[in-house]
């Protein structure tokens, strides 16, 4: 049976209290002795010091005792650690891919091809986090203080961590490994919601934003349902504003393009929506513009439309003929992501999981 995070939290806190207790007792002991000796044996009261140069028995005692205490304290800390690292299997948990990059987390639900800058998980389910950072990025660390757990997101490898929320609520997520300019703003939220709300959230995401893109008109029109549902302004703030500025003024990191300046009109891959989609999907080699393929295709289109809308000349500047969109959809096989539909496996998986964990508990 998988233990809940509550056990981990309790174990960490217990270890903390044991270590603190030992420390406080010893600290008070040391300081009291120091003060008493300093007063009692002050030169005004004790003009001549005693002739003592050591005591081997005492030395052995205060070497052996801290050694034993150290071994004990090691085990105290090991206990909670063992729970933390006792990862639930993928079948028994909800897997969330945590993509960390300068300077945002993206949470991906691989069973559903959903991406979100905030994390949503159902209460009472083990959540298995697969932590990564893009190869050309830097190290980050995924830290949820409430669950007393953290693990680094290192380029080129996948690290693992898990937790299980026992209370509905919103919790802080921080990046704990220094990652540069906006390290302090690499803050996200964990929404622990009821099983029902979680399913609702997933379903809505799928309905609104994660349909396959086979309708050219839908991605051409900035006001189409799928684009609007992506809430591009929020995505822009999370993923783009750190470098390109909250209003698209650019230059917040070296070489970051301004989206509003007419003078710098020659964009590397062009200024139309399909061009921007390509840039977002592939990144720009040799620059700090990364491939944002961690975002869903709808989100990338939404971002392209949002960027187009920032320009003072208006979004018309980024219009492209319909053929360009068709080419794009073929190029990235966007119409083929058909598996994503309402009867997608996550729902079933959850259903199954509820039964499984329920029956396990009954055992």
């Amino acid at each position, binding site marked *: 049976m998988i233990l809940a995070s509550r056990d981990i939290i309790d174990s960490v806190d217990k270890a903390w209290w044991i270590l603190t207790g030992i420390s406080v007792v010893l600290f008070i002991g040391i300081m009291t002795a120091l003060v008493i*000796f300093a007063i009692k044996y002050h030169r005004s009261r004790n003009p001549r*010091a005693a002739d003592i140069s050591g005591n081997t028995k005492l*030395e052995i005692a205060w070497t052996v005792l801290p050694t034993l205490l150290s071994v004990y304290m*090691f085990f105290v800390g*090991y206990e909670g650690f063992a*729970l933390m690292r006792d990862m639930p299997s993928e079948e028994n948990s909800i897997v969330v891919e945590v993509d960390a990059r300068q300077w945002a987390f993206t949470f991906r639900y691989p069973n559903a091809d959903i991406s979100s800058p905030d994390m949503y998980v159902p209460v009472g389910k083990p959540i298995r986090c697969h932590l990564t950072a893009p190869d050309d990025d830097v190290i980050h660390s995924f830290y949820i203080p409430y669950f007393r*757990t953290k*693990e680094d997101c290192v380029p080129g490898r996948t690290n693992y961590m898990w937790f299980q929320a026992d209370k509905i609520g919103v919790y802080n997520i921080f990046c704990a490994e*220094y990652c540069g300019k906006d390290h*302090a703003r690499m803050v996200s939220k964990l929404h622990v919601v009821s099983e029902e709300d979680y399913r609702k959230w997933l379903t809505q995401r799928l309905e609104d934003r994660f349909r396959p893109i086979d309708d050219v008109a839908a991605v051409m029109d900035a006001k189409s349902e799928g684009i609007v549902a992506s809430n591009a302004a929020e995505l822009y703030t999370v993923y783009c504003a750190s470098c390109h500025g909250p209003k698209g003024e650019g230059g917040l990191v070296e070489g970051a393009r301004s989206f509003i300046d007419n003078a710098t009109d020659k964009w590397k891959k062009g200024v139309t929506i399909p061009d921007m989609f390509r840039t977002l999907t592939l990144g720009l080699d040799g620059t700090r513009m990364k491939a944002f393929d961690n975002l869903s295709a709808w989100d990338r289109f939404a971002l392209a439309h949002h960027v187009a809308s920032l320009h003072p000349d208006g979004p018309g500047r980024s219009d492209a003929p319909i053929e360009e969109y068709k080419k794009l959809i073929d190029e990235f096989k966007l119409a083929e992501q058909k598996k994503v539909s309402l009867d997608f496996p996550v729902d079933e998986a959850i259903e199954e999981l509820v039964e499984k964990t329920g029956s396990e508990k009954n055992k």
Partner: protein
Amino acid sequence: MSNDAAALPPLEQVDYIRAKKGLKSWLTTVDHKRIAILYLIAILTFFIVAMGLGVLMRLELLNPGTDFMDGPAYNRILTLHGVIMTFLFIIPSIPAVFGNFLLPIMIGANDVQFPRLNLASWYFYMAGAVLALIAVGLGGVDTGWTFYVPYSANTDSNVLLPMVAAFLLGWSSILTGLNFIATVHRLRAPGMKWGDMPLFVWGLYATSWIAVLATPVVGITLILVLMERFLGIGIFNAAMGGDPLLFQHMFWIYSHPAVYVMVLPAMGVVSEIIPAFSRKKIFGYWFIAVSSMAIAAIGSLVWAHHMFTSGMADEGRVIFSFLTFFVSVPSAVKVFNWLATIYKGSIKIDPPMLFAFGFIFMFSIGGFTGLMNASLSTDIHIHDTAFVVAHFHYTMFGSTGLMFFAAMHYWWPKMFGRMYSFKTAFFGFGLFFIGFNLLYFPLFLAGLAGMPRRYQDYLPEYHGYHAASTIGSWIMVVGLMILFINLIVAIWRGKKAPMNPWGGATLEWQIPSPPPTHQFDAAPDLTHGPYDYDFLYEDEDQPKETEVKA
């Protein structure tokens, strides 16, 4: 006061400060005492600069949001603060200044084994410092003092210069270490056995071995990062089959033992001050001496406790946690021995002694909170939070930094031949102590509440901790400035210091204050040990008046 030199009796040698005049005589000196003064000036200057940077960081953190420094500016200040404090202040501090000044004297030698190499170390140090300053002029660096890859391989900021600077500073450490080891082995006064050496010398000796053995690793690591950055050799680049964690291992193989390079000499200073002001033999001489070597040895095997959340194998984390706990044993042994030394002593609380008591307080807090970092489950939570910032400031600054100031107060009369105002020193220490604890203690709590470190901004729920901390920084800085000004003023205005103002038993108190260039014309008096204070009580139980220079 101005005619001191003229007033000296003819037989008296001219002291090392007045032995020669002019800037050139200082910059080309091979006298270990003058080199110590060169280091002192440079190290104190850098300390004050980096402290100023720290105060700026705290000021930015007074309120949430950006007040006057944005992320990139804050990150540069943070890096600079860390690089200067680590490489230019705390690593060289006690060994380079007080080690240089006192190690030869304490073992009855006239200089270190290789005096010219000693001067070369200082030039390596200055070259590193100048490069670091040039890097600042070119826009600064934003990698943090740890230079983690891939960040340091990718950042736009100028990483080359500070890394070359750190490399040169490493050379300075290695050469000083070699010099000290050779000096201890070769130049002890005839008749001085290993067991007759003051414990400060043992601390320096242990430190020197770490510096010599571990520093090359960081040198190699920095060179590899530069090759990664400029030649793209891919050793740390995951996309090319390298591993970013390799860097962390290599970096901490040096940088963790470096922590003991910082703290062992400080413990050595404590082991000098406590018996001197207790007029009592140090308790458990050999246990303190051996515990220094034990800390050096065990401390070399615990580096990966900096990587408990890095994704390193769980087995590795377990082993490194287990080993880390054992470093606490020799540290505890030292504290108990100091306490036992005070027991039934004849204690006088002059400023150096008060500082040593302060060390025991700060080091205990720093050490005990280290247990929570060594312990696996608690470390996962507090790793890379403000808790760690508080912990290492208690050990590095509250302990080692404080003992650097203690050493200044203990040996200032010897180095400059002048006494300073005790009242001012007590007052300055009081402010420092209150300010320091107000500055760093709230950060433990902030860290436990989840506040990550190296954040230029924070959520409003952490405001209280940060505000208290910032106010503490102001009080602490005022205290420190009072301490420094008190000492500096004393050089010109202070009362003349006697040869042995504290009644110390180590050899530096047998020679004039300040000492002549050639300190031991006659063989030093080894009739009593370094902690044998009986000589002070020749006349019944009345302590002999400490000798005052003619």
